[in-house]
Structures are given as structure tokens and as C-alpha cells.
């Protein structure tokens, strides 16, 4: 077994192992949580090692099984996947830190199940990140859905179960009715589902079928929450804050847009996307999603709901990027995936920390909260800036590249939607931080309901990611360069 294969196996085995161990030592919370953190850090190290190898031009591969001809369970690393894996593993570590603080602080029940499912979800994410073909991706994508279902219904009350039902029905339904037929369609026209640089489909079938397949695959990846398949995301807000952070920033939604990026880059290829009318329709729909979601976010008083709608909008940015008839759109999309993840997880951690410390969940209750929790709200402010896309935050670069790519390819509508939405996000995010930090003297702000206020673990976690937002401002170029091979293939082909 080569070292590349070993790395892939380890990446998959570590979360599984963590799940098993968490289950086994479930009665000893300290041991359980220590081991979870150890596993997180181990996974970070492994994924970073893989990231380096991919950066050096290596592409580790591993074939597990071939159930039928044309169907393989196989893994292969490429830049986008490596980036996704690193992002997810680092944020898992941060989120685990936060979870420990939150779960203990909120005295949640069934904590062992929580950690087990969390680890299983990471197993799914790692599989999605490294999948070498659509079939493998699909398996892990579904595993992710199933592993997160108990997390969404964690509270176990009627509302949680209802949300869980919507969650499963939308995600699994879309997978079965749209995504799977799309995959099978790809397999039957192209003979395989392997991700191929430059695209698998070009030259294999007619334009009509290509259009149909694109629609099936993009809508099938319902985790990307494109309207009208977005309903599950706000509904899933009933989950505890660490789960929301995981769903919105790290695992689930990012798996959705990641899938769309992969499909665009490796199944259709930027060139074919350019030619397909369906891509344009999706662009329009994404533009509408961006604006509508931002408008809805404005109306929400519940902070987590507001953040959820914000996520719907931001995801549509990445979907647009994947559909842009210009290769640099892919790079911008990949970049935005990272930027948004880091910023959004900060926001959720902060929201969760405020809830644990004071019990406040509504925006209207948070005026003056900055008096008691200045540092936390500062982190919130930083992350808000990054989501809006203002310097000196990482989010600025990706938005800039996205708008640039839209203009460059003549998609004025998309560009306009992005700009409008940025303005709207100023309106729905900044007031939260401002009211909390710079409240008029009369406003006292919410009281601590928990001795000790904000849990230290949560504060640390938010700090790490907030600093990440700043750091990414500097690191953006490095990441963009890293993703360059995504577009390079087409650019080279198109040159002569």
C-alpha cells in the first residue's frame, strides 16, 4: 500500500474510529471528549499532509471495491477536494471545542449520540471530499444526510421531529428523485461516473440530455439549498448551535455546493457549461435566491434563523460561481466556500455562546450584550464584515472575484444580485453587532443566566475562527493559486 492510499484510508478511518471510541467510552464524558479532540487534531494533520501532496502535484488514489462494471467505490484527491477536506477537518476541531463548551453549558441529553453522529458526519464529509466519482460521492453524501439526521432531531420534541422529517424528506427525496437518476444518466451516456479534468460528458451525448442531466444533478444536490429546495435549512434551526454550525458552515451545505462545483468542473467541464442554456437558467434562479434570501433574512428576529437565511443566499453565490461560463468562476467559488465557512461558523459559535450564557436567541434581545461579552461580540463583528465582503477580511476577495467573473462573462444580472445582496447583508448583519457593542447608555443588555458567562471553550473557538477570517485576507492568493488547476485545463485547451 502506497503512502497516498494509506493517507486516504486514515482520513476515512479516523472519524469512524472516533465514532466507535466515543460510543465505547460514552459513560466517561471527559475521556470521550478528550479523545474526540485528539481525533480532530489527528485528522487536521492528515488532511494538511494530503493538501501539501496535492499542492506538489501528486494525486493519491485508492480503489475500495467495484460492485458492478462502471460502478466503483474509489477515491482520488484533487485541489478542490483537498481544500474542502482541510477546511472541514480544521473547522471540525474548532467546532468540537465549541461543542464541549456548549453541550456542557446547556446540559443537553444524549451527548454520546451527539459525538458519535458528529464523527460519522465527518466520515461522510471526508468521503465526499475525496470521492473519485459521482457514485462514491453519492454514497458518502447520503451517509452524511443520515448521520446528521439524529443531530437535527437531537432535542427529540415534536418540533425537532418535524424538522427532522422535513430535513430527511427534502434531502433524501431530492437525492432519490433527481440526483440518483442524474448519476445513472451520466453513467449510461458516458459509461462511468469518474471525475475527469475538463469534464466527463463533452462529446458523449446530445444537448437536450446534457441540459436535463445538469438540472437533475444541480437540483439533486439539495444540500446546496437553492430555492425552491431550501426549506430544510431554516427548518433545521431547531438543532443545538454546534449542529447548526456544522450544518451551515462545515459539513452539509458545503458538501452540497462542493458537489455542484465538482460536477461543474469534472463532469460537465467549464466549456460545456458555457454552452448549456440550463446553466443560464440556474444562474438566474441563483440570482433570485441570493436576493430573496437576503430579504427574508432581514425580516427574521431569531438570530439563528437570520443566519440560516443568510446561508441560503451565500450558497447561491457558490452555485452561481459553478455555473458561470468562465473558468475563473470555479476558483472564485472554491474560495468563497472557504471564506464563507470560516465566517459563518464564527457567527454561529457566537450566537450559540450568547444563548448559553444569557438565554437570548432573538436579535431584539441582544441590544447592549456587548457590555458583558465585548470580546465575543467583537468576533461576531469581524465575521459579519467577512460575510458582507469588506476588507480586511477574507470574504472580500472571494466576493470581488465572483463579481469580477460575473461581469467578465457578461452576466450582469448575477453581478447585480451579488452587489444588492451585499448591501442587504450590511443591513441584516451589522445592526446586530452595532446594537450589541455600541448600545445607548440606557440599554442594559441580557443578564447572564449561567455562572461564569460565556464558556471558555466557546470563546476560544470563536476567537480562532475570527482570526481565521483576518488571516484568510492574506492567504486568499495562496488558495486561489492552489485552485488554479481547476480552470487551467480549459484555459490551455481554449488557447490555440
Amino acid at each position: 500500500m502506497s503512502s497516498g492510499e494509506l493517507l486516504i484510508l486514515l482520513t476515512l478511518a479516523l472519524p469512524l474510529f472516533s465514532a466507535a471510541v466515543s460510543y465505547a467510552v460514552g459513560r466517561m464524558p471527559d475521556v470521550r471528549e478528550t479523545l474526540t479532540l485528539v481525533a480532530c487534531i489527528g485528522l487536521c494533520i492528515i488532511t494538511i499532509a494530503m493538501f501539501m501532496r496535492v499542492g506538489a502535484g501528486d494525486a493519491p488514489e485508492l480503489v475500495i471495491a467495484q460492485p458492478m462494471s462502471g460502478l466503483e467505490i474509489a477515491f482520488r484527491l484533487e485541489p478542490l477536494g483537498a481544500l474542502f477536506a482541510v477546511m472541514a477537518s480544521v473547522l471540525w476541531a474548532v467546532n468540537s471545542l465549541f461543542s464541549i463548551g456548549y453541550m456542557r453549558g446547556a446540559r443537553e441529553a444524549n451527548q454520546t449520540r451527539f459525538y458519535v453522529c458528529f464523527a460519522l458526519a465527518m466520515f461522510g464529509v471526508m468521503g465526499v471530499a475525496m470521492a473519485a466519482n459521482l457514485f462514491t460521492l453519492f454514497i458518502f453524501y447520503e451517509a452524511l444526510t443520515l448521520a446528521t439526521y439524529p443531530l437535527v432531531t437531537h432535542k427529540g420534541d415534536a418540533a425537532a421531529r418535524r424538522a427532522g422529517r422535513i430535513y430527511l424528506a427534502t434531502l433524501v427525496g431530492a437525492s432519490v428523485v433527481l440526483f440518483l437518476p442524474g448519476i445513472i444518466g451520466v453513467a449510461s451516456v458516458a459509461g462511468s461516473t469518474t471525475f475527469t479534468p475538463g469534464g466527463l460528458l463533452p462529446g458523449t451525448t446530445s444537448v437536450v440530455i446534457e441540459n436535463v442531466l445538469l438540472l437533475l444533478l444541480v437540483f439533486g444536490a439539495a444540500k446546496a439549498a437553492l430555492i425552491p429546495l431550501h426549506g430544510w435549512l431554516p427548518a433545521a434551526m431547531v438543532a443545538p448551535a454546534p449542529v447548526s454550525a456544522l450544518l451551515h458552515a462545515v459539513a452539509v451545505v458545503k458538501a452540497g455546493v462542493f458537489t455542484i462545483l465538482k460536477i461543474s468542473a469534472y463532469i460537465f467541464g467549464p466549456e460545456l457549461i458555457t454552452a448549456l442554456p440550463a446553466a443560464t437558467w440556474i444562474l438566474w434562479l441563483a440570482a433570485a435566491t441570493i436576493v430573496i434570501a437576503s430579504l427574508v433574512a432581514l425580516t427574521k428576529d431569531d438570530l439563528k434563523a437570520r443566519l440560516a437565511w443568510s446561508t441560503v443566499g451565500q450558497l447561491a453565490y457558490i452555485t452561481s460561481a459553478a455555473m458561470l461560463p468562465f473558468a475563473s468562476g470555479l476558483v472564485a467559488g472554491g474560495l468563497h466556500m472557504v471564506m464563507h465557512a470560516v465566517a459563518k461558523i464564527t457567527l454561529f459559535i457566537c450566537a450559540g455562546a450568547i444563548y448559553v450564557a444569557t438565554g437570548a436567541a432573538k436579535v431584539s434581545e441582544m441590544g447592549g450584550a456587548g457590555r458583558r461579552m465585548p470580546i465575543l461580540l467583537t468576533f461576531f463583528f469581524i465575521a459579519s464584515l467577512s460575510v458582507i465582503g469588506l476588507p480586511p477580511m477574507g470574504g472580500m476577495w472571494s466576493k470581488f472575484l465572483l463579481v469580477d467573473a460575473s461581469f467578465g462573462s457578461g452576466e450582469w444580472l448575477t453581478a447585480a444580485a451579488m452587489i444588492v445582496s451585499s448591501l442587504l447583508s450590511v443591513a441584516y448583519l451589522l445592526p446586530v453587532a452595532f446594537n450589541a457593542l455600541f448600545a445607548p447608555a440606557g440599554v442594559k443588555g441580557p443578564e447572564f443566566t449561567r455562572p461564569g458567562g460565556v464558556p471558555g471553550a466557546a470563546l476560544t473557538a470563536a476567537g480562532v475562527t475570527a482570526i481565521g477570517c483576518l488571516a484568510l485576507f492574506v492567504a486568499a492568493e495562496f488558495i486561489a493559486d492552489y485552485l488554479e488547476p481547476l480552470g487551467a485545463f480549459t484555459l490551455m485547451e481554449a488557447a490555440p
Partner: protein
Amino acid sequence: MILFEALYVAPPALTAQAPILVIAGPLIGACAAALSPGGRTAWMVSVLTAAFALWMAVAVAGEVAREGVIDYALGGFAPPMGIALRIDALGATMALLVASIGVMGALYSGHALESEVKAEKRTLFQSGYLLCLAGFLGLVFTGDAFNAFVFLEVSSIGTYALVAVGEARDRRALPAAFSYLIFGTVGATLYVLGVGFLYAATGTLNMVDMAMRLATLGDNSAVQAGLAFVVAGLGVKAAMFPLHGWLPGAYAGAPSLVSMFLAATATKAAIYLIIRFVFDVFPEGEFGEVFLSWILAPLAAAAVIICSVQAIFENEVRRILAFSSVAQVGFILLGVSLATPAGLSAGMFYLVAHALMKGALFMAVGAFAVSVRARTVEDFSGIAREAPWSAAAFGVGAASLAGVPLTMGFLAKWSLVSAALQAGEIWIVAVLAIGSLLTLIYVGRMLEVMFFRAPVRGAERAREAPVGVLAPLFVLAGLSLWFGVDATLPASMANASASALVGAAP
């Protein structure tokens, strides 16, 4: 089938006689079981006999893989004078399936009967079970249209009584068995009538001879009606929509061994015979095409949609599984109706997959029944905590039913959809997708209740079933998983079956 080509499992003298021994073995075993002094002995006879049948079926499969088609003339009279067995890749596959399920059922019956069948009835019960096994195996091997009727009845007469024995647990088994008897007999009589018309037109009962003579006949109303009655009659046995009315009650009421065995083999054997007639006996041409694409396919699609919905609104677990069976028969027939090598192969693959997973599901329900009296979905709540191993096997079967990746059910759906796409039948793809979604709903409901709810049975607590029940259950569930990761064996068998029917390798 490649695997079987290298397989010489029996001495040559035995291999030469293997086709008839597959059938005669269980027949003689049934006598031995009826003569045995007690349930325990009868059980051992049952296990040994079924194992012998499986051994011979493997020998036959090896012969078929080497020779292509085996003919065995009974009584030494060449067809059409005498009755001949005729086994091709399809028949060998079916026999392997039926015999394997037979062995699993026989193993399982050791403990399962104790909670469901009265002690004094167990010897006769085992005898009846072996008669059914012999009947299905005979049905699969025979090359004679009337002989098929005889075996249809051998299996049916025993089955009716076996279903009715379920009265010990649920008295609704009795009317269900009665209605099964009425439906089944009407079906068998329609079949005889159809064979009568074909016999009137050709003067022969041997299927090969019949096919040759039909090919030279022109358009004839007797032939058309003959084909229609044959298919309608078998359709009743195969629970082809809308002739499935007998099935839910019968599966729900029967002892779990019988439900499991019927779900895995009875409808399958009838489907097999339909396939035989449609592809081997019917003359090629317009009539067959019209039948496949204008009658079979729409009915199968209706079964997929309507019966899945019925399963969703059903409240008893066995009845959910039963309605699901009718819907799944629809899936299989949709594949068959494509009439392409890929479609037939997918249909056969689905048939095997469904036999394995439905077998596991009914077995698991029986495993729960060892300790608790549970009927409705609510009765099963939280059972996963009390009987985790049985519940795990149930989960695997249910996952395969729902088409979760890495199970055989997924690959089956996959190949069905690919076949439909290849044939350009987009509406079938749509039906398959909707059907799969509906399946997910009722499967998900059962799993949610079993795995995520707290037990509500009060004082009655489920216990884990004994090893004798768990072992065959795990084999079936394990096969559903194993073939989901490496489907080489069933896929090659399905492909060989399809090419035996329509000639071209897919």
C-alpha cells in the same frame, strides 16, 4: 455463471441425475418428514433435504455453465412424447435462489416454529414446507406446460394450509388463506385453460415444441387468448397488479417462516414462468411487443405507485412488507417489460435482490415474534434496544429495500434505471424514481420507530432471538450487504439468464 463453470461438486453419476434429484429429493424428504416421530426429527430431515436440493442445484448450475442448456427426459421418452426438464442459465439461477432460500428457511424453522406452530402440527408442517420447496423447484425446471401446472398445484395446495396454520397467532390467517386458495385456484385454472388453447393450436405440451409450432402459425384468436390466459393465470400467482388481492392478507397472517418463504420464492417462481412463456414460447412479433409495452409495463408501473402508497398508509408491519412485495414485483416486471438484455438482466438481478431482502425482513419480524406479540408499527417501537441483532438485520434488509447504496437493493435499482435509460423509456425512469421515494417513506417510518423511539410495550419486553433464528437471518442480510459491494456473482448470473432468453450478451 463463470464461477460455476469450474465447479464440480458432485460425482459425475450424480451430476447426470442432478436435475431430477433437485425435485425428487424434497419430495422424498417430505415423506420422510411426515413419517418422523417428532418435530425435531422432522426439522432435521427438512434441513438435510433442503441442503441436498441446494447441493444438486449447484451441480446443475455447474453443468449449465459448461453445457449451456440441459435436457433431461423423464421416463426415457424424448419430448414431445414424454415430459422433459429443460434448464438454461435462467432456470439454474432460479433453482439456486429457491434452494438457498429453502435451506435458510429450513434452518430458521427450527426455533421459529416453536412460537408460532403447535407442537403436534410441526411434523406435518415440515412435510408441507418441503412439498412447497419441491413444487417451486419443479416449476422452475420443467419444460412441459402441463407439468408446470401440476407443480404449481403441488406448491399451492401445501401453501394454502401452511398459511392457514398462522391462525395460532392471528385468526385472520384463516380467511386470508381461503381467499388465497380461491385466487390461486382461479389463477391455476386460467393457466390450464390457456395451456389448453395453446395445446389445441399446436397439439403439443412441450414448451420447445410448442414454441416451434407457434412460430409457424399465423394470427389465431385461440393462440392469442391462450397466451393471455396463461399470463393472467400466472399473474395471479405472481401477485401481478391488479391480481394481487390475496397477497397482503396471506403474507400478514402466515407464520413468519411461510411469509418469508413465499415472499422470497412463490411470486418469483411465477414471474419466472411468465418470463419463460413471454420470451421462449410466444412467437416473436407484434403480439408480444404489444403485451409487454402496453399491458405489462403500465400494470407494473401502477403496482409500483399504488401499492407503495398503500404500504405507506398501512399500519401493520407485515402488511406493509406485503404491499411492498406487490410493488417490488412491479419493479421486477418493469425491467422485464423493457425486453432488452439489459432490462431482463436488471429484472433478474432485482428478483434475486428482492428475494434476499424480503426474506431477511420477514425473518427478522419472525425473530421479534419469538418473544413479543407485535403487529402494528407502534408495537415495534424501540425494539432495536431490546433485540439489537435482529433489529440490525431488519435494518439491513430495509436499507436494501429502500435502495441505500452499498446494499444489493441499490445496485438492483441502479441497473433497472440504467436499462430503462438505455432503452429510452424515460417514463419508466420516472416511475422508478417515484416508487423508490415512496419506498423510502414507509421504510423510513418503520426504521424511525424501531431505532429512535422508546419502547411502549409496557411489561412485555422483547428478547433477542436464539442463535438458530439469527444465523440464517444474518446470512440473508449479510448477502444483501455483500452483493451490494461485490455483485459479480448475481450480476453474472443475471446476465447469463438474460442472454439465455434473448440471445445477446448485454
